[in-house]
């Protein structure tokens, strides 16, 4: 029972981090139809920013998270204005290659400043929570609570506010949205900012129980891609459900199958599902 509970907890932790990253990716894809390969680099920069703010400036964990979110949101907006916006009418190949260029640049830049070695963000809440005979590290519970809280806020924002619905409208139909007077530039800036902030928050939440290094974004971004392909590109509920599915598959797979091959599970799942359903599990389409 206890071991099973541990796996559920692990799955929820992993799943909520993946879901946050995948949400940002799917939002940007919904609006601009760009698979942003640089999104993993944004996640990585987010972790480094939190590490810097806590480690060198002595900031509080939550302040550092907000700071990292702000910086990465700015970086994401800059990448849209300077690169992706200018390539709007270029062939899709160009967007992808530009995103790869950005990814390489960010990774090399971070490595130039902080080096290739591993860093650690000291856990702000090292306590262990006990409930009946179940034990759980506080940080994991914080990850789950914060991630789901954030997803709930995002859901409210997208469905209950005017600004939020412009994002949904733009994702559903670009021309239609322009016709009713929605400013495409404003929406894409907003979307990139949200996606960057989500990546940074996910990284900061996950960092205390993980390592920080320049290529830390690779695996995460690839799993996020797997998630949004499974959940339907541009679908928000799909990203959340997909994130949890991959999270659980990994934690249970690592325990019941093999720790060594746990990273392959997500990809094996992708290959298996796409062999039978090339269009993904849920047909894509933007809904909130």
């Amino acid at each position, binding site marked *: 029972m206890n071991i099973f509970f541990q796996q559920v907890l692990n799955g929820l932790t992993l799943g909520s981090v993946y879901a946050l990253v995948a949400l940002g990716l799917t939002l940007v*894809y919904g609006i601009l*139809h760009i*698979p942003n*390969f640089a999104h993993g680099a944004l996640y990585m920069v987010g972790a480094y920013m939190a590490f810097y703010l806590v480690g060198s400036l002595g900031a509080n964990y939550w302040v550092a998270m907000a700071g990292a979110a702000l910086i990465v949101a700015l970086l994401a907006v800059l990448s849209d204005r300077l*690169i992706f916006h*200018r*390539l709007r009418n*270029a062939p*899709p*190949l*160009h967007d*992808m*290659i*530009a995103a*790869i*260029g*950005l*990814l*390489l*640049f*960010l*990774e*090399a*830049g971070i*490595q*130039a400043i902080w080096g*290739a070695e591993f860093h650690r963000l000291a856990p702000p809440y090292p306590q262990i929570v006990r409930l009946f005979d179940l034990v759980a590290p506080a940080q994991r519970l914080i990850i789950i609570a914060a991630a789901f809280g954030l997803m709930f806020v995002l859901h409210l924002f997208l469905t209950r506010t005017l600004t939020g619905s412009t994002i949904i409208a733009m994702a559903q139909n670009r021309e239609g949205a322009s016709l009713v007077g929605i400013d495409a530039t404003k929406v894409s800036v907003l979307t990139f900012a949200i996606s960057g902030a989500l990546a940074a928050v996910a990284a900061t939440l996950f960092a205390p129980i993980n390592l920080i290094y320049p290529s830390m974004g*690779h*695996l995460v971004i*690839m799993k996020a*891609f*797997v998630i949004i*392909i499974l959940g339907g*590109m541009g679908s928000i509920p799909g990203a959340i459900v997909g994130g949890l599915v991959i999270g659980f598959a990994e934690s249970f797979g690592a325990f019941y199958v093999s720790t*060594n*091959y746990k*990273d*392959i599970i997500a*990809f*094996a799942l*992708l*290959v298996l599902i*796409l*062999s039978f359903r*090339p269009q993904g599990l849920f047909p894509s389409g933007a809904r909130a």
Partner: protein
Amino acid sequence: MMSKTWQKPLLAVLLLLAIAFPMIAANDYYIYVMSLAYIMAIAAVGLNLILGYTGQLNLAHAGFMAIGAYTVGILTVDYGVPYWIAFVIAGILSAIVGFFAGLLSLRLKGHFFSIFTLCVGFMIYLIIEKWDVLTHGTVGIIDIPAPTGIGPIRFDNTWSQYYLVLFFLVVSLWLMSRIVHSLLGRAFIAIRNGEDLAETLGINLMRTKVLAFVLSTFYAGMAGALYAGFVRFIGPAMALESHTFDMIAFILVGGIGTLFGPLLGAILLTWLTQSLQFLQDFRMIVFGPLLILLVMFFPQGLIGYWRERQARRAAASMQDRRLQRSVIGQQQEVGTNA
């Protein structure tokens, strides 16, 4: 366009330069670097077939190169198979894996295909890294034997290996030029220009795309096999997507969808990296923005840009001639009227 009469002499001069290079080069190290650039160029020429001619961004290409290299490494080191037999098996095995990967991934279009192949490449990397009984895991395979001699020719020094690699480079370029100028090559280009249109023309999309994919992975496997015999040390990192990104950079700089673009890019960027040696791992600080600037302002690469200029000049001179003719014609008309 480059006029056909110029093409052959130019190629002959280039080939002579390549043959003379070891005699001009200051030391063996330069020859070594150039050979490495040629090997990467062979892989990039293969990637260009699926990316530049068929229009599918395959991000697993380095993975297939690693399959070729590991086939040679495992067979020669652990099983004592002679190099050249392992070499042939490497190409075939990469193509077979490529066939199945292609069957699966080419059902997806555009972005989905690229994302899927990114995952395929990473799976190849993970399998190489984790299956240590077969692949030696993270340690990599060391002491891979150099290619065994053929008849009186031996490949035990940098010079002879340079010529060996050059030979394969010339063969792969020749083969690629035959492919892209054939009807099949036209079919590839038709798919790049528009899948729906290509299908209405009667091209079997799936079969043609899989064929392009298999051919390109065969090139990757061959390049990997040469790499294993030349560098003689391989590690799982060579399957990482960052090496595919390197090859994409070669293709973009030289000219996407051109025969010599990948070669030009591979040579230029390899030497650029050499001269930026102090940057080492940070070379991507330069290459990353370079990629972005290229797709923004210079998407056709060097050869593409040159061709465009030639075409524009040809068009301009044509217009001049037409103008002159009409002026002369008018004068003649004036003359006859008078």
